[in-house]
């Protein structure tokens, strides 16, 4: 499946992605409503773009008490807004803190890949974000990071 691949070392925390996301989805430049977030550790000069990875065994979908989170045929994890009651269990379940919540609509929101043309990728000038087939693009990075943490990388 094509996904947003993150090249962490290229991120400068310019936050153009946050603006592009909130503008294209919510019509306003509000980073708080962005579905992609930069975790910044300024003192270490370490910036990590955080965005839904459409987990293989998605904890958010497993826990949703109204079956509002479902996997689409293309593999994407989507929220059926009509089914969402706004309980926020998915926010508590997402290990990456990338499930966000719209106070206005009262529903959870995650990265919907902008129908195949992610705006964050378009606006990421340093090239830290790429829209690519996830298996090929990140297998190596994944394995390295997992090994460093002693985590399995199935």
């Amino acid at each position, binding site marked *: 499946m094509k996904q947003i691949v993150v090249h962490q070392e290229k991120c400068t925390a310019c936050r153009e992605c946050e603006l592009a996301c909130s503008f294209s989805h919510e019509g306003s430049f509000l980073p708080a409503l962005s579905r992609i977030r930069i975790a910044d550790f300024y*003192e270490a000069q370490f910036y990590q773009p955080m965005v839904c990875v459409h987990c293989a065994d998605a904890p958010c979908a497993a826990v949703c*008490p109204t079956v509002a989170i479902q996997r689409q045929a293309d593999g994407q994890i989507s929220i059926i807004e009509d089914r969402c009651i706004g309980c926020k269990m998915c926010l508590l379940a997402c290990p990456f803190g990338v*499930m966000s919540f719209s106070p206005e609509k009262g529903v959870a929101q995650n990265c919907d890949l902008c129908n195949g043309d992610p705006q964050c990728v378009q606006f990421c000038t340093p090239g830290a974000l790429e829209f690519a087939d996830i298996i090929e693009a990140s297998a190596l990075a994944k394995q390295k990071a997992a090994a460093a943490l002693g985590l399995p990388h199935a």
Partner: protein
Amino acid sequence: MATQYVLIGNSAASLAAIDGIRKHDKQGAITLINREQGSAYSRVALPYYVAGEMTLDELLIRQQPDYGKIGVTLVENENAVAIHPATKQVELESGKKVSYDKLLIGTGSETIVPPIQGLDQVPHHYLWTLADAIGMKQATNTAKTAVVIGGGFIGMLAAEALRKLKIKLTIVEMAPILLPQLLDEGAGQLFLQAVRDEGVTVRTGALVAALAKKNDAIEVTLKNGDTFSVDMAVVATGVRPNVRCLQNGAVSMNKGILVNEFLQTNHPDIYAAGDVAETKDFLSDGRSIYAIWPTAIDQGRAAGANMAGKQQPYPGSLGMNVVELFNVTLAQLGRFREGAGDDVKMLSSGKDGLYRKVVVDQHGTLVGAVYLGDENGVAEMGVIHSAIRRREKWQGFQDGRPPKFSYGAVMQAAPRY
């Protein structure tokens, strides 16, 4: 021959167990026994139905054809009354007997009836089943005032639903704060104030001694002698494991059904999961029952996989809650009230309505957190949640920034679809 799976209950634990079984066994016959009628509904959504925000149809989390499609036979309106491990049979109230190769008990919780004088003589409402919610909703058509007895999780959900319907509320809670199972003293005081600011009368440190019918109203008498009248009474003084079908001593029990790390009871072919099961705890050496949706899902999935012949250990239960009440979002994880030897990291102290506290144990390992604030802060609790599950050490924090765990690296390592 194909395995005969029998599951008692049609809610979180059993539905997750079906997923667990079907992941590994596509052939076995699954029979689901439920004392209620119809396909599964979401208990968590019931308060939204009471508040008039959802219809009965919208509460459903399965449709009738969903069961057949994956080879599940739904036996509705049948109460399991006994289990006979010697003959491997479940006895139903109608007298029928259902044979099993592997059995799951997922009978959940039942509400506790408190010792209140006159309770059985006045109309009152619980909030656990769909029938309860329908009854409560009907009562709200005419009620202008209500008492909520018990300011715990379910009591506060009921209160929130009634508030949305503009019913004037009095909440009576034994503890000094509301939601004592979810909030520490600091967050509890902030929340108490937020509820009172909405015009709700909250009587903390108080007990209801008696209820009595007085004309069309209900007279409430507190233990200290105070009285007041309301149109409607909601009772939410807690739940306990529903072990009614196990009165014959067929399986070992403490408060709930005792299971090992594979969710097996003392009979290897009988499993238990969800609110009814007393399982391994994640943070302590003991066993626990949290009676929450996420643990029912986790246990159900693991039980299902094990019933299908896998060896999938259950890592243990971790208490967690998240809820939005009276325009405040609250969340809790693990050991949120510090014990001896624990250390507390205050990330936000309650100023401007934001309270974030993390608890670490004597080795510096994250064990719990409490959050009070707006909706989006819960995402950070999700990160802390996974860090607690990985038994990560606390690594410092800068004000206004997310806690620093190795989650960037974890993200790179995540198994993706």
